[in-house]
Structures are given as structure tokens and as C-alpha cells.
């Protein structure tokens, strides 16, 4: 059965209140067509887990502008004054997490670990409300795993079966998030026949990918 799905139907699957892992770093490696469609459909009360919220009007910043998001887990919101405004105004609940710990928490969620024992953040405000454990004389924060209802990814190519690869820094969080979303939807730049991505070059194995966003017209065809 084909995994191809129209972006409208894909986003219709996302209910208000859903939790979403979204790939991307400052809008590079972010699924732009999906984001625009979420805004168009007016989704509300989402929990968004993503590295940053970029700038107003661009990438997942559009989700903040459109007030689709009630709760945000991110490592950095400094580039988006609207995110900061909503946070200070109490309209948006924000949890800031060190970027490396965010990676590991998502990974832990996706692969069934109970948590992450990390030195990053020990003794800082990032440790507030979290348990600390001492192993061989060194302190580690216990960071909790993250999973979500959806992982919305961007990639360079998807083959017919859903094997994915990525371009340079557009890879970022996408491969990790593919493990941690109950439903995984990938927005590729290109869809290619099986075999075009050789086995050793596949970054995200097809078994993790539920849907691929259908092609958008290109080359005038």
C-alpha cells in the first residue's frame, strides 16, 4: 500500500491538542508545506517539541504567529520575539531544555529508555524540579523521555517505501524524531524509486515512516 498522502489529508489526521515533534533548526529541515497547512486548517492547543521557533512568519514560527501552540518544548526561542511575548503574557507554556539533552530525551522516548543520565544542566536552573543521581562520584540529572502523537519531518528524498535521506544541516533532529512519533509523516523534496537510495545511505529506515507527503508539481508538470 502506498504511503503517499496529500498534505491536506495528512494534516487532517492531526487533532487539536495533539503533541507534535517537528524537525528543523532555524527553519532548515522543517516540513514547510505541513506547517502552512496546519495554519490553514487552524489547528489549536498543540504541544510542539522542536529545537527553536525560528522567526515570526518563517518555518514553525508561523505556528506561533497563528496561535496553534499551547505548549512548547525547545532549546532556544531567542530568535522569535513573538514566542517570548506569548510566553511572558502567559499565552504559551514554554519548557526550555539544553539542546543536547533535548536530543537524548527524544531518543530515549523513541527507543524505550526510562530516562537520560546527563551531566549537562547539573547545578543550573535547567535542573530545577528534576532528580539528580550520583554515579561514581559524579552528579547526573535524570531527564525524562519525550514521545509525541506525531513526528512531522522534512527530508531530501523518500523512496516509494519510505526510506529517507537528508541534506547537510537539514538532517538535524529529523532522524531522531522518526523513532519517537506514534505517527510519522515525512515531507520530502523528492520522491524516488526503491533502490535510488542505496542500503548504506539510508538514514531513516522505511519501517519508521507511516506517510510521505505527495509530490508538489515541479518542472511545470
Amino acid at each position, binding site marked *: 500500500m502506498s504511503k503517499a498522502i496529500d498534505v491536506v489529508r495528512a494534516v487532517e489526521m492531526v487533532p487539536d491538542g495533539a503533541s507534535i515533534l517537528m524537525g528543523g*533548526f532555524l527553519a532548515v529541515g522543517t516540513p514547510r508545506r505541513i506547517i502552512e497547512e496546519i495554519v490553514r486548517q487552524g489547528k489549536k492547543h498543540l504541544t510542539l517539541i522542536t529545537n527553536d521557533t525560528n522567526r515570526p512568519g518563517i518555518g514553525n514560527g508561523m505556528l506561533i504567529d497563528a496561535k496553534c501552540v499551547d505548549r512548547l518544548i525547545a532549546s532556544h526561542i531567542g530568535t522569535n520575539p513573538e514566542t517570548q511575548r506569548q510566553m511572558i503574557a502567559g499565552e504559551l507554556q514554554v519548557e526550555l531544555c539544553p539542546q543536547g539533552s533535548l536530543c537524548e530525551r527524544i531518543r530515549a522516548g523513541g527507543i524505550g529508555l526510562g530516562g537520560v543520565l546527563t551531566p*549537562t544542566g547539573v547545578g*543550573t536552573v535547567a535542573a530545577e524540579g528534576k532528580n539528580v543521581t550520583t554515579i561514581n562520584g559524579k552528579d547526573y540529572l535524570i531527564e525524562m523521555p519525550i514521545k509525541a502523537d506525531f513526528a512531522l519531518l522534512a527530508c531530501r528524498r523518500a523512496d516509494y517505501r519510505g526510506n529517507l535521506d537528508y541534506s*547537510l544541516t537539514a538532517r538535524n533532529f*529529523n532522524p531522531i524524531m522518526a523513532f519517537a512519533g506514534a505517527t510519522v509523516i515525512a515531507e520530502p523534496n523528492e520522491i524516488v524509486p526503491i533502490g535510488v537510495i542505496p542500503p548504506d545511505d539510508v538514514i531513516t529506515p522505511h519501517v519508521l515512516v507511516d506517510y510521505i507527503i505527495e509530490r508538489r508539481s515541479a518542472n511545470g508538470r
Partner: protein
Amino acid sequence: MEDKVLIAKRVAQELHDGDLVNLGIGLPTLVANYLPHGIEVYFQSENGVIGMSKVPGKGLEDDYLIDAGGIFVGALPGACSLDSCTSFSLIRGGHLDVTVLGGLQLDEQGQLANWMIPGKMVPGMGGGMDLATGAKRVIVSMNHSAKGVSKIVKKCTLPITSTRRVDLVVTELAVIEPTEKGLVLKETAPGVTIDQILAATEAKLIIPEHVGEMSIPADL
């Protein structure tokens, strides 16, 4: 010489051939412009590339290749792409030889505060806490004072980035090495006296018998 150029040139002297280096956004980025001759270092951007360079010409930008500040960059032959988890595995696992970070405050314990001013600036820590905690060597490059107030303080009043003691601090006035016993003045900037540094510094500085002068190769 401009203050920030002096700082960048001095920090660059700390890099060694073959080092994997991560430069924080802002002042630290300048370090890449002043590498000592004859050494090859590899710049990591934590969003997923080793071997970052400048874009070699206008119009050659790649939509999918940016640095951690969101600026288009290029890559050198031998570069490699990394997902975020792998990129931070290098940082957190002690595989990053040097990180150069900016600073808001640095205290007598050698602890750095560089990511938030409560009630004023809450951008999030991004990769800063991971870098400050995990890199083999943490170098802080910053102005000695802000609006006349020393940034080298007895005890950080701003939220710290890590409990880890940084390895070196370079300002436009001095090179300071945090040690177990406190902050040791290692070098003075050209034309700057020890007394001037003491006057500009809130923290207690340990002054060893010999304090050198920052040496910047003339051809840099």
C-alpha cells in the same frame, strides 16, 4: 586594533592542528578569521556539520547548509554531516577539542553565565550548556566590562551555564586562567598595566611573579 579583533586573534593562538572547534555565536565567530598559519582546524556547527567554511561566493549558498546562528555557510572537502544527536554526542562525550563561548559573567570559581538575564532576556540555552559542560577545553572570549561594570565577578549573579570551571578567559585587557585556587592573571593586553586590570576587575585576581604580554604574530 579593535578590541574584538585583539580578542579573536589571541583566542586563535589557543587552537592546534587537527582540533575540532565550535565557535559560539557573536564575538567567538571572529576567531575563524585569524587562524595561525600552517594549522588546520575543523569547525563544527552543532546543528550538524564538521568542516564548515564561509560561502565561497555570492549566489553559492545552499538552502540546507547553515550555521547555528542561521547564517548560510559553506563546507570544505572532507566535511561530514551529523544528525543533532550525533553532533551533541561529540560535544557531550569530550570529543570537541575547543569551544569558544561568549560570556555575560565569569566568576572566581571559573563558572560562566552566558545564557539569560532573568526578566529581560530568556532566549533559552540552546547548545550552550552542553558546550560549556562537555567540551575538552572551554575558552571564554568577551569584553572585560559592560557599561563600566566588570564582567569578571566574585560570584555570578546571573544564572550559570554550567558548574564546570572554564579553562581560559580572553578579554581586551587580559588573559585569565581559572584554577582551583582562583583566577590567575596570565597575560596583559599590549599597553595595559596590571593595575589597570585590577581596577577593572571585581573578582580577586591571583598575580603570579611573571605576567606575560599577549603576543599576536605580526602577520595575522
